[in-house]
């Protein structure tokens, strides 16, 4: 890995390719949670890797490279969230109308399907849920990052959880109806 990083610092394309291949899956698993869909997540991953290659000189070898990449991917996702906020129509999504095409029990839901539920949250709920629950940020930190108050962050988390529960219940209900 050290050699790969050194190669990337020299802008060696082969080193960049190998590093990209090595961390692509990990990076996508982070960005996909913050994005609306896989296509958007792939764009964010590439934005993140552009920052990785551009700022690799700033990487401190004492710290974990994987952790450094994780931080960059989260920041890239938050940048995307901000862009999304500027361009989106400001209408909250009604989860009651969410349609699930594959009825299953919660225990049988794949990781991909669960991530799909997170993607269905509104951007504001999704970003707070990801930052707090998955990535371990505090409400204070989230407030600073997103420019919102701690209270708003807590409120968004509460609503995100409620929406996810609703989606899971709806999923189970459909599954139950199908079985019977």
């Amino acid at each position: 890995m050290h050699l790969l990083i050194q190669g990337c610092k020299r802008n060696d394309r082969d080193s960049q390719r190998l590093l990209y291949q090595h961390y692509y899956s990990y990076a996508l698993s982070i960005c996909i949670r913050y994005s609306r869909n896989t296509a958007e997540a792939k764009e964010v991953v590439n934005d993140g890797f552009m920052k990785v290659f551009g700022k690799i000189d700033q990487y401190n070898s004492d710290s974990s490279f994987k952790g450094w990449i994780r931080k960059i991917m989260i920041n890239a996702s938050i940048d995307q969230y901000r862009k999304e906020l500027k361009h989106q129509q400001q209408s909250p999504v009604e989860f009651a109308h969410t349609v699930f095409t594959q009825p299953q029990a919660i225990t049988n839901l794949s990781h991909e399907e669960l991530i799909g539920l997170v993607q269905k949250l509104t951007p504001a709920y999704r970003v707070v849920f990801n930052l707090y629950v998955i990535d371990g940020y505090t409400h204070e930190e989230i407030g600073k990052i997103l420019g919102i108050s701690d209270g708003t962050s807590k409120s968004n988390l509460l609503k995100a959880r409620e929406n996810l529960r609703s989606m899971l219940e709806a999923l189970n209900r459909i599954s139950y109806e199908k079985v019977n």
Partner: protein
Amino acid sequence: MKKLTDQELDSLFKAASEGYQPAFDAAEWEVMANRLAQPKPSLWKKWIPYALVGLIIFSSGVWIGTTLNLDLVNNKEGGSMQEKALSLKNQKEQPITDQQPKGDETRIGESKHNNERVIGNVNRNLTDRNKEIANHIIFDPEIDGKDKNPDSEKHILPEKLQVDEFEILTNESPKDSTLHANEETKADTTKLIAEEQEKKKDRRLSHLIFIRALASPDFSAINFSSASSMGSNYAFLLEYQINSRLTISTGAIRSMKKYSYDDEITYSGHIADQLDGTCRIIDIPLNVYYSFPSQSKFSFYTGVGLSSYIMQQENYTYTVNYKYSSRSYSTQIDDKNNEWFKVLNLSAGVQYQLTPRIHLQTEPFLKTSLAGIGEGDVLLNSLGVFFGLKYKIN
């Protein structure tokens, strides 16, 4: 169905996140490789149209200048030495135009008793005229542009012509007198030439002062992010020539800098998602310029120095994005921040000598902050191209 607790719900999604392993998509590397191969977006792209306009203006100026200058040289100076010789020959054939009235010469020719007095007068005239000849011979348009008065050429007489005049007037021991006059004249001329050359050398080497009036578009940005809109610079500078290659320059540049930063930025303790700034600044540069040797009227130079910013007015609008909306805050700060020697100036330019005193200049520059600037303490960088004139005042 039993309702999941917060902890159970979080654990479910955390496990999903950790367990999710999307496959590598080789096509994405192709996209990435293309992005890596592209040059980084820079301010220079936005410069191209302005640089082209500037180049056209500069080229037009050079073309007009060349045309005018050729006319001036032909009309006033005779241009080459051959033209000078031709001019002198013409003068020889024409009646002498001097301060001394023509009638005096006729009278002298008629009255030989007054010869000695007249010889004295003529000798004095010769000395004066020879000074003028010396001036003419060593005339340097760069040094003596002010002497390019058409009237001054009326006084220029060839040495031989004056000696002939002397012979006509005396009519006594013509050989001795002529030789004596020739020796004196040559000695005077040589001495004067040497003196003038010495003066010319001194003046050429140092103590020349120039004034420069320049204007430029200004593209400012924080941390070299892309510039959003164009500002302006109007400069009035004084330049002092230390020696034939080095000059120092200072003065004032009235600058309007406009910039926008479309990313998270900490500004006065707040975290904003976007910052738009418009600042009116008096820029006081202190630069050293090095001129590269040149045999033509074009010459190249490069400069380095430091600038101080007197922040006359700072207008900032910073935007914070909220859940479903964004909010903008504006602030104006007047005459608060003075930033002494915090900006590094780098520039390189080309100049064209339009007349002995006037140069056309074009000078691309980069100003980069060495420390935080203004109320926002931002690392502000500016690019531009100065276009203007340099005028020699001594």
